[in-house]
């Protein structure tokens, strides 16, 4: 039972942390609860569909369909998180200054919400599909469903959601002025970690070279399966035995998104400047 809890917890944690962070980041965006809920529902439906289609997807592209699918989902998520961070960088000050009224007036607020929907949906889809497969495996195993194992799986979901909620609640205690800076940094590292994971799938598909695999090995020092390792993996993309190409993807995402955020903060985006003038 405990094994099932741990496996499901590991899968759910990443999505839960991401949702906790973006929910905190968009706390003053009007209507964000509906968009978040819609994203989660769409993600769950997608997870079911992906789980059902596992064999089909795997056969695509000459047997590397699963790798390309995962890399594409991660790639889109990175792009969406980048957009989210740039948007927050240009509007964060306005959102913090007058949280109640400004939100609806900000141009792109609606687009930001649809980005939110996609980000949340993809996170739930990716982690959810593996959870669905695992739970299906338990339910369909010979000798009938193993109830303790299923209960363990459900406990894992609850634990993952609880940690995501704790992070959300913790972030909400930060004053608005600092909240956006904090979530911006968190999202930046989430995105970089996802870029590194995308690289791992592209290496596995043999689309890109590994460039030294592994580049380093800290699996005895800080195993990725330990609690600290799992948390660090979910939050900042820690891997105990990463390939060189993963680190390259990680750094490129980190520098590109990070410098984009700084640039937007300093110069503003054209639409934001027009708004400020009017």
């Amino acid at each position, binding site marked *: 039972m405990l094994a099932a809890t741990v*496996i499901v917890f590991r899968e759910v944690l990443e999505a839960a942390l991401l949702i906790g962070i973006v929910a905190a980041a968009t706390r003053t965006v009007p209507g964000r609860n509906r968009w978040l809920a819609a994203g989660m529902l769409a993600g769950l439906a997608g997870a079911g569909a992906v789980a059902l289609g596992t064999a089909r997807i795997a056969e695509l592209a000459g*047997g590397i369909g699963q790798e390309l699918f995962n890399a594409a989902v991660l790639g889109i998520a990175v792009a969406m998180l980048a957009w989210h961070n740039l948007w927050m960088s240009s509007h964060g000050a306005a959102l913090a200054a007058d949280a109640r009224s400004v939100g609806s007036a900000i141009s792109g607020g609606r687009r930001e919400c649809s980005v939110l929907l996609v980000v949340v949906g993809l996170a739930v889809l990716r982690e959810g599909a593996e959870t669905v497969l695992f739970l299906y495996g338990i339910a369909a195993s010979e000798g009938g469903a193993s109830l303790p194992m299923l209960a363990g799986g459900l406990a894992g979901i609850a634990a993952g959601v609880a940690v995501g909620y704790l992070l959300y609640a913790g972030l909400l205690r930060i004053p608005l002025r600092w909240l956006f800076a904090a979530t911006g940094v968190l999202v930046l590292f989430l995105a970089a970690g996802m870029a590194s994971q995308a690289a791992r799938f592209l290496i*596995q*598909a043999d689309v890109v070279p590994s460039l030294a695999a592994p580049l380093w090995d800290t699996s005895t020092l800080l195993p990725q399966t330990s609690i600290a390792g799992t948390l660090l993996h979910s939050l900042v993309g820690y891997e105990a035995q990463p390939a060189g190409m993963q680190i390259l993807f990680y750094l490129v995402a980190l520098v590109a998104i990070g410098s984009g955020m700084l640039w937007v903060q300093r110069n503003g985006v054209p639409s934001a400047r027009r708004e400020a003038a009017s």
Partner: protein
Amino acid sequence: MTRLALAAALCLLAAAPVQAADDEFRLVLQDHRFQPDELVLPAGKKVTLVVENRDATPEEFESKALGREKVVAGKSTAKILVGPLKPGRYPFAGEYNEKTAQGVIVVR
């Protein structure tokens, strides 16, 4: 970037038949156990692991040491490209049945 990756993948597909099936090593999953549970692979070479899942339930082949993870649906076969590898021991497991589905790749 995604589009670029897909384009690259398509190019690779075109070239795939030439290099396919040169070095295939077979792993069979039955009753949530790998057979064999110790597989010897040559060092410094790209090889293909062919994982045949004879169980009705899905399994996730996972090896942090190899940097590989792939879901293998029930009653199906998946190919996983690995290497070139340095000599050493690379543990792997079926994540959905970690208690029994354990194995190690020994590279010489």
